[in-house]
């Protein structure tokens, strides 16, 4: 049955993927079931809560409202695409922006779409479609506002750049390339190497 579907080709976290799935399958289900990327969560399934937020061509969308066919040719970035090294990920951990964690991937991607130094107004508007039942939002907003300062502070305190085995000053680019990505320094966010 699946072989009957035409392949849908798109870029997922920087890598080209080609999938034979039903063209009306939700992008949310394609990511979780066919790509094994379960960082994207299903909350309401009706575009209200933002838990399934992913970036499509750099813009935040609800993956529960996108048919697979409409991802064709697009650049899709999920929370896994930030590799645990995005300044926002560190900032959410440091400033109490995450509690139970269900809304967090969507929150971080919605925040990433705002670029590196959003105003508080931009943050409130940009995350109005991301609902959290734990944090009361202030920790989230604080994390987004302090993402840059937070990462500098960590640099001084935790370890020297040389200790990572990377050249001093060398930086990896996130798939969302507008935001420069320093080295990973928070063990809990570092991806396990297998």
């Amino acid at each position, binding site marked *: 049955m699946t072989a009957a579907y035409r392949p849908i080709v798109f870029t997922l976290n920087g890598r080209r993927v080609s999938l034979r799935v039903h063209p009306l399958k*939700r992008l949310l289900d394609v990511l979780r079931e066919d790509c094994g990327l379960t960082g994207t969560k299903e909350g309401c*399934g*009706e*575009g*209200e809560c933002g838990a399934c937020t992913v970036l499509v061509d750099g*813009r935040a969308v609800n993956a529960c409202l*996108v048919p697979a066919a*409409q991802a064709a040719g697009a650049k899709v970035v999920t929370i896994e695409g930030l590799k645990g090294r995005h300044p926002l990920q560190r900032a959410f951990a440091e400033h109490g922006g995450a509690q139970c964690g269900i809304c967090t991937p969507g929150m971080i991607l919605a925040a990433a*779409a705002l670029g590196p130094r959003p105003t508080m107004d931009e943050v409130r508007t940009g995350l*109005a479609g991301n609902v959290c039942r734990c944090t009361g939002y202030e920790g989230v907003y604080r994390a987004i506002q302090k993402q840059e300062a937070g990462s500098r502070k960590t640099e001084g305190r935790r370890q020297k750049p040389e200790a990572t085995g990377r050249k001093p000053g060398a930086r990896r680019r996130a798939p969302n390339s507008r935001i420069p990505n320093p080295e990973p320094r928070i063990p809990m966010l570092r991806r396990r190497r297998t």
Partner: protein
Amino acid sequence: MRTAISPLALLQPRSLRDALRMLRDEGPLTPLAGCTDLYVGLNAGALADRRFLNIWGLDALRGIELRGDVLRIGALATYSEIVRSADVRRLLPMLAAASREIGAVQIQNRGTIGGNIANGSPAGDTLPVLAAADALVELRGLDWTRTVPFTGFYTGYRASIRRPDELITAVNVPRVEGAQWFRKVGARSAQSISKVVMAGVRAGRPRVALGSVAPTVVRARRTEDALASGAPIAEAQRILQEEISPIDDIRSTVAYRREVASRLLAQFWAATR
């Protein structure tokens, strides 16, 4: 998702012409654009439609441009594109205001103005704007194009004059003279569906349109007449009550909607003085 997708079909046209041919020869088909309404129904298992037409990739339906005095907004223009458009912000600020308050960013990045029109919800937030702006809807079939006044587009609750073999291709808005005004009243400022929504234009002959107060968007022409004739606002408010027919539903009540509609009219009139 509460709908089994395996029995559903999606047709994928390569061009507008291709799409219109499919609508004629392989219909009935439900056009799918940003899916911000249809997928809510599909996710809830509440959508009866089984065959869909993917028009999201049809570039001929994109773009916002100024043609002489007419602002032409492609049916696939998203709310985000409308908000970003310098032409919309300058010439039709009430549409930018309405688009900014639809859903939140995730919805604004996907939802389209053509979808808002086609969906025809009485609570559609751009609809009072289009009614107050005397916009024109462009409909295309395989061998024809017709342009109809938006105020004559709906024939009843979620029913319109669009034929099943036609697509909404654009909405054309002639220059709007006078001050524009828009206000949506919902449970909160983001992510909520309107309890009452109103757009107004303050010109020699004012224009007033409301959503969520009747089976379709309402252009309150007798209220406009009263305002144009210099009648006191209380008189215009009394006439407005005769022109709307709100219902009690999950979002609000008749009494609240009547009260809010009345107050919005007064706010509009005071704010654009």
